C-alpha cells in the first residue's frame, strides 16, 4: 500500500501533503490531552498488528486494519496512521519522507469515512446491522485505499495506469479478508470489553458521519473525472480521401502511436480489416464499399481510441472527405443528371474532379491544424484536472496551517 519515493510527481505529492496536514490538524484538535497515552498505546498495537501476515488463498498479506482504526478512533486515525508510516519510513525505508503525506492520506481518509459510516450502526441496537456495517467498513476502507493509491499513481502519469490497475486488483482479496477480520475483531471486543466501544461512543459526532457521506459522494465523482481524463489518452484521427481511409493515432503527449493494432468494423459490427500502424503512427486501407466504418486503435494496455468514418460515393469515384461532411457532394450528382447527356457527362467529370481535388487540398491543409487543435484541447483538459487536484491539496494544506496557528494563539 506504500508508494515509494521518486514515483509520484510534485503536484500529487503536494496535494497529498496538504490534505494530510489538514487531517492531522483536525485529528489532533479533536484528541484530548488525557487521551494521549491511550491513543499512543493503540498506535503501537496497530503498528504491531500491521506486521502480522495473514494467509489469503495461496499467498499472504500483511494487515492494514484502517477500517477498524476508523471505527475505534475516528479523526484520530490520521495522526495514528501518520506515526505508523513515519516509523516505517525511518526504520524500514518503506514508503518515504516525500510520500508520507500521500500515503497517510490514502489510508486515513478511507478510515475516517468508513468509521463515520459504521459508528452509528454500532450505536444502534441491531446486532446484525452493526456487523454488516463493520464488514462494509473493513472491506470498504481497503478498497477505497486501493482506489486512492491507484488514483495517485494514475495522476502522476499515464504510464502508471497499468501498474495502478494491478495494485487495485491485488487488493480485492485483502479487502475481503479484512472485512471478515473486522467483524470478528469488533464482535470479540463487544463480547470481552464493551467499554472499548463505549469509549468510542463518547466522542462520536453526527457531523463526522455527514462529512463521511458527503465525501463518499464526492470521491466517486473525482474518480469518474479521473477515468474520463484517461479515456482521452490516445487519439485516433481518421478521414476518407476518396480512395482510402487514412488514420493517424497519437498519444496526448504528442507521440505517434506506432506499431499498434488497428481494427476496422463496418456498420453491422463485422470486422472487415485489421492491421498495424507504421512508424509515423499512420494507417491506411481501402474500404470494400460505402457505409460507416468504425476504427479502433489498440495501443498497449488500456490505451484505446475509436473513430467513425463514413464512406460515400465509392462507385462514382467522388470524394467524401470526412465523416458528416459528405452530404453536399452526393446531393450534387443527381442534380447534374437532369441535364443534357454529353455535356452533362463532361461537366460532371470536371466538377467532380475539381471538387474532389479541392477537398483533398483543403484536407491536407486543414488536417494538421485540426490535429493540433484536438491536441491542445486535450492537453488543456488534463492540465486542468491535475491543477484542480493540486489546488485542492494546497487549500487543504493552508487550512491545516491556519488551524495549527490558531491553536497556538488559543494557548497564549
Amino acid at each position, binding site marked *: 500500500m506504500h508508494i515509494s519515493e521518486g514515483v509520484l510527481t510534485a503536484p500529487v505529492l503536494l496535494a497529498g501533503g496538504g490534505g494530510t496536514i489538514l487531517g492531522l490538524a483536525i485529528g489532533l484538535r479533536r484528541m484530548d490531552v488525557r487521551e494521549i497515552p491511550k491513543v499512543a498505546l493503540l498506535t*503501537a498495537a496497530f503498528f504491531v498488528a500491521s506486521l502480522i501476515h495473514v494467509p489469503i488463498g495461496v499467498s499472504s498479506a500483511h494487515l492494514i486494519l484502517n477500517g477498524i482504526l476508523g471505527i475505534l478512533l475516528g479523526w484520530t486515525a490520521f495522526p495514528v496512521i501518520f506515526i505508523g508510516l513515519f516509523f516505517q519510513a525511518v526504520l524500514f*525505508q518503506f514508503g518515504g519522507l516525500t510520500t508520507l503525506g500521500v500515503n497517510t492520506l490514502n489510508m486515513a481518509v478511507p478510515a475516517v469515512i468508513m468509521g463515520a459510516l459504521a459508528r452509528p450502526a454500532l450505536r444502534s441496537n441491531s446486532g446484525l446491522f452493526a456487523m454488516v456495517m463493520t464488514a462494509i467498513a473493513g472491506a470498504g476502507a481497503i478498497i477505497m485505499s486501493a482506489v486512492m493509491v491507484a488514483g495517485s499513481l494514475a495522476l502522476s502519469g499515464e504510464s502508471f495506469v497499468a501498474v495502478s490497475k494491478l495494485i487495485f486488483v491485488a487488493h480485492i482479496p485483502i479487502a475481503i479478508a479484512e472485512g471478515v477480520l473486522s467483524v470478528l475483531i469488533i464482535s470479540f471486543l463487544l463480547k470481552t470489553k464493551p467499554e472499548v466501544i463505549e469509549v468510542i461512543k463518547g466522542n462520536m459526532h453526527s457531523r463526522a458521519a455527514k462529512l463521511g457521506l458527503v465525501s463518499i459522494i464526492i470521491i466517486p465523482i473525482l474518480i469518474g473525472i479521473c477515468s474520463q481524463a484517461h479515456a482521452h489518452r490516445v487519439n485516433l484521427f481518421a478521414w476518407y480521401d476518396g480512395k482510402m481511409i487514412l488514420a493517424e493515432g497519437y498519444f496526448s503527449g504528442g507521440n505517434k502511436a506506432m506499431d499498434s493494432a488497428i481494427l476496422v468494423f463496418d456498420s453491422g459490427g463485422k470486422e472487415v480489416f485489421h492491421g498495424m500502424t507504421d512508424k509515423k503512427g499512420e494507417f491506411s486501407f481501402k474500404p470494400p464499399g460505402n457505409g460507416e466504418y468504425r476504427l479502433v486503435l489498440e495501443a498497449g494496455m488500456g490505451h484505446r481510441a475509436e473513430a467513425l468514418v463514413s464512406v460515400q460515393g465509392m462507385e462514382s469515384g467522388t470524394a467524401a472527405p470526412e465523416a458528416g461532411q459528405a452530404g453536399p457532394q452526393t446531393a450534387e450528382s443527381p442534380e447534374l443528371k437532369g441535364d443534357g447527356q454529353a455535356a452533362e457527362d463532361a461537366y460532371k467529370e470536371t466538377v467532380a474532379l475539381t471538387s474532389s481535388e479541392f477537398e483533398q487540398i483543403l484536407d491536407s491543409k486543414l488536417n494538421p491544424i485540426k490535429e493540433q487543435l484536438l491536441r491542445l484541447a486535450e492537453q488543456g483538459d488534463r492540465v486542468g484536472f491535475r491543477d484542480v487536484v493540486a489546488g485542492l491539496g494546497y487549500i487543504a494544506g493552508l487550512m491545516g496551517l491556519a488551524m495549527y496557528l490558531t491553536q497556538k494563539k488559543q494557548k497564549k
Partner: protein
Amino acid sequence: MTCERFASGKSILHSADPRVKILLAIGYAVVTVGLGSLEGQVLALSGSLLLVIAARLSLKEVFHRLFVVNLFILMLWFILPWTTPGTGVTRLGPIVITAEGLDLALSISLKCNAIILANLALLSTSTIFSLAHALAHFRVPTKMVQLIFFSWRYFHVIDSEFHRMKQAIKVRGFEPGSNLHTYRTYAYLIGTLFIKSLERGERVYKAMLCRGFDGTFWLLSHFRLHRMDICLAGFISAYLFLIIGVEWINPCR
C-alpha cells in the same frame, strides 16, 4: 525487534545534531524528487552513497534494506517499459518496449534509491527519540510529539506482549491457513492486543497523573549546534546546489 539498527555508531553523521539532519534529509528528498535529467539523478545517487559511506553503516545491512525496497521498483521495470507510450526500441512478441518507458523506470530507480540512501545516512543514524525531540524544537504540535514518544516507548512492550501470545497459540498447535479458524484466532489475538494496550494506556495515564502530568511536554535538554554540524550542513547544501545547477544545464528528458 531489530529496529533502530543503524542508530548506534560513532561517525560524523551519528554525532550530528538531529535538527540539522532532519532539515538536510527533507532538502535532499525534495531536490531529488524533482530531478528530471539523468546527470542530476546520478549525482544525487552518488552523493547519497557517499553519505552512507561517511556514516560507516554496515554495507551488508544497507544492501539488504535496499533489496526489499527495490522489489517494488523491480515490478515497475516489468510493467512500465511496455505500458508507456513512446518510441519503440525492441519488440518482444506482441509487446513493444519503448525508450520512454525504460527511461522512466531508470529515473524512478535512481531517484528512489538516492532518497532511501540519504534517509538511511541522515535519519536512521538517529534514534526515534532524538528525532521526536528535534521535532519538538521545530514547534511541531506538542500532542503529536507526545504521541510519537509514547507510541515508540510502548511499541516494544506491545510487541513482546504480542510475541508472547503468538508463542502461546503455537504451543497449542496453531497452524495458520486460509480458513475461518485462522481468521478467528488472529482476530481474537488482535482484539486482545487492543484491550491490553488500552488498559495499559489507562494505567500509564494514572501513573503520569500521580507525577503531575498536565499535558505539557517539558524539554529538559536542548541541542547545541557544533562547528561540525555547520560544516555538514554547508557541505550537503552546497552539493544540493551543485545538483540543481547540473539539472538546470541539462535539459529534462
